[in-house]
């Protein structure tokens, strides 16, 4: 695995009033890896993602994504983002949704058609046909979300709680998809509080507590221990205790 950084956050702080949602956070995401970004609710995960996407600017520190500022269109052209839960346009079907997002990415109609057909198959929405998105289940909407994130063939995927609403089978398929994407050379930033899933797919994990990073490391370094799995690390750093 190459070690050059795709995302670099340096001493980033983002405050809302007196509260620091992100507090002096330094983090790097390396090319071709899956980085798990873990924390409890309100730990600052989504705010960090907003900073990485250029939706918000840091009060202090610097954010660099793919070597540039995240708000630049040239940078965004190489980022695929899947939000936690989005109720995509209810009056479109999956083909129209992808045509819309493809148009926003500046892709031509033929490219959109070819990529959309492949992606719909890949995320398991081929059976949905021309059904409107308002009739989709939560899991199907999540699949539509990953399809729109992959449509423009991005180098970096930012996934915010991608497993929300997925049934066990869909989780397995989703996990396989992420591993496939990594093998294709994509870099994946995986924000979640699903420890078991993160343990299965992530190369490295960063744990966030009240906006500050409390642990970051490679899972292979701790996996051989036999005692110290991700749950123990998580508990140790977040609750200040070690599970029996």
């Amino acid at each position: 695995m190459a070690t050059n950084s795709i995302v670099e956050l340096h001493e980033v702080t983002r405050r809302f009033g007196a509260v620091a949602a992100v507090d002096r956070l330094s983090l790097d995401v390396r090319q071709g890896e899956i980085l798990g970004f873990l924390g409890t609710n309100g730990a600052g995960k989504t705010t960090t993602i907003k900073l990485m996407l250029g939706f918000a600017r840091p009060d202090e520190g610097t954010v660099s994504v793919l070597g540039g500022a995240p708000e630049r269109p040239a940078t965004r052209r190489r980022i695929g983002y899947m939000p936690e839960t989005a109720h995509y346009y209810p009056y479109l079907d999956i083909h129209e949704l992808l045509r819309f997002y493809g148009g926003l990415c500046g892709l031509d109609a033929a490219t959109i058609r070819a990529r959309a057909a492949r992606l719909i198959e890949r995320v398991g929405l081929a059976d949905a046909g021309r059904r409107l998105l308002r009739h989709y289940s939560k899991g199907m909407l999540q699949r539509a979300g990953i399809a729109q994130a992959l449509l423009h063939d991005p180098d970096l995927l930012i996934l915010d709680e991608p497993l929300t609403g997925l049934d066990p089978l869909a989780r397995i398929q989703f996990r396989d998809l992420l591993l496939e994407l990594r093998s294709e050379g994509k870099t994946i930033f995986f924000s979640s509080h699903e420890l078991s899933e993160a343990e299965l797919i992530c190369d490295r994990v960063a744990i966030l507590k009240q906006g500050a990073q409390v642990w970051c490391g490679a899972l292979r370094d701790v996996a051989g221990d036999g005692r110290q799995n991700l749950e123990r690390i998580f508990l140790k750093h977040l609750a200040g205790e070690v599970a029996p």
Partner: protein
Amino acid sequence: MIVWLRQVRALAALAVLELYRRKDLVVVLILSLLILCPLAFFTPFGVKGASRYVNELAMLPIWIFSAVIALGVSARLFPPEFESRTIFPLLAKPVDRGTLLAGKFLGACAASLSALVIFYLAYGLLTGVRQGLWFPVVFLQALLLHAGFVVVVSALGLLGSLVLTPSANLTICSLVVAGMFFYGQRLPGLVAGQPPPANALLGLIHWIGPHVEFFDLRRRVVHEWPPVPWRVCLAVTAYAAAYAIVCLLAARSLFIRKKI
């Protein structure tokens, strides 16, 4: 440039597709045809000339429905994006906020104007069948100016959608549009007749309010009066464009600063 056009086209197509899929327009069209058809074939007291007043009555729902559609579409451009959280994947794409705004506005205009053309076609066909007058010049001028009205109302609705809740936006915009439509012409007289500070307030409304009454050629169409000079049409169209651009620039300024 090609990329920008593709982005704008995608955004505009979304607004048009959603309007037709939501079936709101179908309901409004059926309602307006239900009003237009009986009126078109109704001759009050058997007096031929009196049917003009029936035509005037038929034009009124077209104005009301076009305003309702333009406001309904433009006021719904952004709030659902925030509510359903689709604003995040939207802004994560390589599209700047100004383009997003322009695309959405053009989509709202295209959707509302397509409905307007259908209304005018229905009216033109019905009066043509009855009176043998097929789309006279004044009718086409009325359509052109009515399109200017739709553009102004859409811009106003879009601007309001960035600062107000959808219901507040619809209420305020409806009041402003209806108020200016019926009282806009009388404002200069009212300003002159009021003591300070009421005259200053009315003067402000006169200068910043959308003068939608400029776009109303109903009476000319109904009474088969001669067309207005084209330079007047152009001046009113330019007013519509200028007013819409000012609204869009204000909306852009708000949207760029808006925290997501």
